């Protein structure tokens, strides 16, 4: 619908070297200045995640801070149905997802300029977006879709920060239940592995491929270091340091070198202070 109109527009899209199309964007229809969005089809050699299908994802640079996910979705739906929007601080592959968190436990998001990965329903929307003429800016805040900024937004934020204690308790409970389940499963797994290591009635132990449940060696770095340290100490105790003549000579040489260094240091310190006129009393 919107895309078909675009084809007849007189103005040409602006494509800069590197393959990015420039989309101007302004906050409201009466703003005087524009930011420039740089859009390009999402192309990487190895995209593992299925969230960003290569043929339907638009990569957008320089999204202003007042454009939330919903706003971006709204803005780009003129090029075709938007499936999902992902806003990030920096370009890069998507996060590995941990357990699902409620918004109250998520770390605070940075509200700066973002890069976006917009997944359309259809791949032809990409083309529509890229061929948007460069003198028709996108407008963020329109009468149909007002965007709150400044004091209004902060008041809204403040209102939204409230949570009922009961609700919070519920979130905590469900998370902990989930957590306990996971823990239990892990323990189960471990117990199974441990069982496997047990001798069977004929005295055989089944040796499996090294797995993390197996305790063959100390399992943390600190413990590793401790053992290493112990070994070193043992070695040192055996070694004689003042047995050969060259060892004697070496220690003496080191001592003098140390003194020389100290003396030079002092001299430099004084010279430095003198250079800064630090000895002028008034």
């Amino acid at each position, binding site marked *: 619908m919107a895309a078909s109109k675009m084809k007849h527009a007189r103005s040409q899209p602006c494509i800069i070297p590197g393959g990015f199309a420039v989309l101007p964007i302004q906050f409201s229809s009466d703003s005087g200045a524009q930011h420039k969005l740089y859009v390009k089809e999402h192309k990487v050699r190895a995209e593992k995640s299925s969230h960003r299908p290569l043929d339907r994802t638009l990569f957008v640079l320089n999204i202003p801070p007042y454009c939330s996910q919903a706003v971006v979705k709204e803005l780009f739906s003129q090029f075709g149905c938007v499936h999902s929007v992902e806003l990030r601080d920096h370009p890069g592959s998507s996060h590995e997802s941990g357990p699902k968190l409620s918004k109250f436990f998520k770390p605070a998001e940075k509200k700066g300029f973002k890069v976006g990965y917009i997944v359309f329903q259809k791949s032809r929307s990409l083309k529509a977006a890229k061929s948007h003429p460069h003198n028709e800016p996108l407008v963020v805040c329109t009468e149909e879709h007002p965007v709150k900024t400044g004091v209004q937004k902060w008041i809204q934020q403040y209102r939204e920060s409230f949570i009922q204690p009961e609700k919070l308790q519920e979130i905590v409970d469900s998370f902990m239940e989930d957590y306990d389940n996971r823990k239990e499963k892990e323990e189960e797994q471990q117990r199974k592995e441990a069982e496997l290591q047990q001798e069977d009635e004929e005295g055989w132990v089944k040796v499996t491929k090294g797995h993390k449940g197996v305790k063959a060696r100390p399992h943390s770095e600190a413990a590793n270091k401790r053992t290493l340290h112990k070994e070193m100490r043992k070695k040192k105790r055996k070694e004689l340091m003042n047995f050969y003549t060259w060892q004697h000579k070496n220690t003496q040489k080191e001592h003098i070198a140390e003194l020389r260094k100290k003396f030079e240091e002092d001299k430099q310190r004084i*010279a430095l202070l003198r250079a800064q006129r630090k000895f002028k009393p008034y």
Partner: protein
Amino acid sequence: MKKKQPVAEDEEEKMSPLHASQEEESDAPVKAKRSKPDSDEKDVVYHPVKLSRSDLYRPPTAEELNQLKEAESLFHCSLLKMQMEELLKEVALSEHRKLQIDTFIQTVTKLLQTVPDSPEVEVNDLSWLSDAVKIPFLLLPKTTKGKFHMTPPASVDLIGSYPLGTCTKPRIMVDLAVTIPSDVLHPKDVLNQRYPRKRALYLAGLAQYLTSCNDIGPMRYSCLHGNRLRPVLLLTPPDSSSFTVRLHACPPPGFFKPNRFHPQRNNIRTEWYTGLQNFQSESSEPPTPHYNSSVLGDLLPRAHLQFLSAIRSQCSAFPEGMALLKVWLRQRELDQGTGCFSGFLASMLLAYLLTTHRISNTMTAYQLLRNSLNFLASTDLTVNGITLAKDPDSTAPSLAEFHSGFQVVFVDPSGHLNLCADMTACTYKHVQHEASVSMQFWDDPTVDGFHSLLMTPKPMIRTSDHVFQLCELVKLQSTCKKANLLNELMDQSGNYVDAALPFILSLLQQGLGQRISLLTHSLSPVPEWSVESEAPKHKAQPPLSFGLLLRPELASSVLERGPPADSPKAAEFRQLWGSRSELRRFQDGAITEAVLWDGESMCQKRLVPKQIIAHLLQLHADVPESCMRYMGAMVDDVIKTGNETTGEEESLLVVQAYDDLSRKLWQLEGLPLSITAVQGSHPALRYTQVFPPQPLKLDYSFFEREKVSRSLLPKEGKPCPAYVTPVTVICHMEGSGKWPHDRLAIRHIRAAFQISLGELLNKHHDYTCRPCASHLDVWKDGLLFRIQVAYHREPQVLRESMNEAGLLIVRDNEEAQALETITIHKPLLTSTLHGLQQEHPCFGAVCRLAKRWLGAQFFSEDVTEDTADLLVASLFLQPAPFTPPGSPQVGFLRFLHLLSSFDWRNSPLVVNLNNQLTATDYTEIKNDFMASRESLPVMFIATPKDKKMSLWTKRAPSVQMLQRVVIVAAESLKVLERQLMDGSQIQDVRVVMRPPLEDYDVLIHLDPKQVPLLSQAVDAPSINFSRGTRAIGKILPGGALPVIDYNPVTLYLTELREAFGDLALFFCDPFGGTVIAVLWKPKAFASMPFKTSQMSARSAAVTGDEVSTLPNVEAILEDFSVMGKGLVKSVDARTEKWSF
């Protein structure tokens, strides 16, 4: 380094056969540096020394070995020795300068020999003097008897420090004694100022002759150590003024009999002085000791020089010792002015110590200084005078007689002259105090003795807790009249300032009593005036300043309890305090005389000394309060709260509320785990919050209400509601196996604890609580506490992670550090500083002033609250060379001085909290610091708990910001001190709190309505907006929660910094600032190639195949107003400053 090394090596090898002493050795690197013109002087930074392998391990010579051994055994000392040698080089006269002086002296001597004779006239007849020259003397009374004529001097001799070799830079003074031929004088001239007047005339005659000579620059008169009876003529060569020759006119040696100048004899007759008929006999005339000593002083300079030369030839380190002593005195402003501890006096003191074998001839300059300070600290010359006279003749006065005439006694080798005649007891006490304090610092291995003794100036305004000035000195005439000081006035030949000063000092000492530990006064500076003008009047001298060193525990007491009504001392007490004294009955049943001063709040109580001084001066000295400028609390205004207090009371209220809450938390029952600690971590809980939170009573109609959670909401379109500061409290829960070992799970469990804490507090104590994921807000008595539950193993859990091989590794990360800072370090710092406040009652106020200044000057983002508190703490814990600050004002001045003068680049600031660090810790900290200077924060602050990291300054300030802080602090200090000490300046201390806005690129002006802390602004606006609070009534527990921690300005700033932090810096005064200053980062405005990771707020320009990007300034400026809609009034882009 590679390039530099050969030069240094060459230098050393050339020197090595020569270097007999260490000095030459230490010259080498500097010479090497100078030979390299490209080495930038500004950029000298300490680099860890790197010597090449061949250099380190080359075979040592025997000589070098010795030297190294010596340096090793005296490691600390050798550094000090080098430092002192450098200092001596700075103050010693160069050979070139000496040559200049010698030739000039020769010219002057030759000229003086050719002074023409003049006919004999009456002393009163001044007609022979031309108009170009005036007599350097105040002729009061107008006439005296005697005849006078000019004739060439009998002899011209060098005296004083120059021939002795103890003359030092700066202010080089060469003394030249001109002997008045005996036929000009008469033995009876001792009487009635005849001799002093003849001497003045003789100088005027010389001046008249010398004006015609081209070899001499403009001449000026002055007087010796401010004694107006002893004028001198100052000569400088016409081309340079780097030194001054001081011409003294003296009688021929032995012309007057010394016994005429006995301190109990009279040489000024009342009849002559007052002009009234007097029926007293000569024997009942009052003694004139000061007059006598001023005449006698003229007779002896040659003898003194001889005596000192003999001493000097015995002790080789004498000149250097003198130089150090002079530097020490000068840094303490003791070496100039009336009654000063002059260089001459210092050399006599050294001579005394040498002749009495308290120091030996072989000692070094360092030891001479140490021993003289030790002597000064331990000897009280106001009670037990000392004498240099070996076997005085029978006519010489005894020490007791000297004590009856003078306050301080130090008798010269002749046995007749008191060298300390003009010194007041207070000045000597001052010297003594300084000496004993200096000895303490010297003995303390943790203090840099060299710096605090010899390098740090101690002006009165930065040394004394309170300072006041007497402005109109004419008023002291009426003091003399009221206190009946005619005899003193005669003795001081009409100088009413000097005559009244001892009286005023003793009056104040008596009145202030136990409240002060030291009373000092400024030495009135030596006047200098051109030969063409009349001698200045006594009132022309600048105001007299007095400094008080307070005893913090007693100084602010409002009650002066006197003796019981029936005791004989009661009359004395009543006499001292006049009508203010009244009978009072005390709780212990005693009825005593007492004076009650006004003072309800702490800030009024701090000014009790002012009330006392004003009252006493008015009552006994007839000096009205309008003549007095009292600088005790001039800067305190900027931290005044609405209730006209400086916040001590409010802080106390917060602390009490917190104590109550913490007790209630401890007593809670029914929690799954018990509470192990409740700790405050907010500045308000250590008395250092600039504007401590005040209990609020809310006007509900002002807000929107959120029914479900019983909370209030800000209303759109109304001014921003009053800001409610959350006071953070950390609540540690007991460790237990039940705690999960997972970061997310711990966070959820903490939230669960916060919920149940809230429920319990609400149930038992009816506080309104609102738990959320990260904290629990508790509304209690109009204050808001924010409780955060902490689990001590959480940082450890955050640090642990599993690597690919399934190995558990522990890695420090920012998240863990931040958590540790909040839950461990901050509470600890808070409790430690809380303790410091108990010890030093004005600690909190100093912190608050300091932070107010930092905020006003836009530095609060860089020098954070905790950093500022630590800096101030260091002023109290390591006050050398001062004593711990006793008033907010002096503390603030020293804070500025610390910021501006500390060598942040080359030394760590060690804050010895709780006195936990020992001397070895100090060296350890210093060595660690030196070894890894480059990687450490620019501002390095070490505390007992944090010796290597400088936890609080890790993030900020940056080098550039620190530089700016240093510059602004130095400038503020200069302006403030000038204003405080000079009454003629415009009196507006807030000048130092108004930042210059010219340097910034964009100014964002905010709507005052939306700035909740507007009333805390430096220049508080006259109109204030209703912010939904009511005048204080009874505050009931419970009720709806107010709008908490809602400040549009900080929200806006965070958004700006997050969005444009790479492009610009944003500055704002957190305390009611209505302007945000923006500074573009020059780096960001350089053209950059197109990169997907660096496109924030930039626009691309295509030239051929290249794509370069620049910040999209127009759009950014519009974003400023879009993002701050409702808050921003206007965005003022100073485009003339930048163009792209």
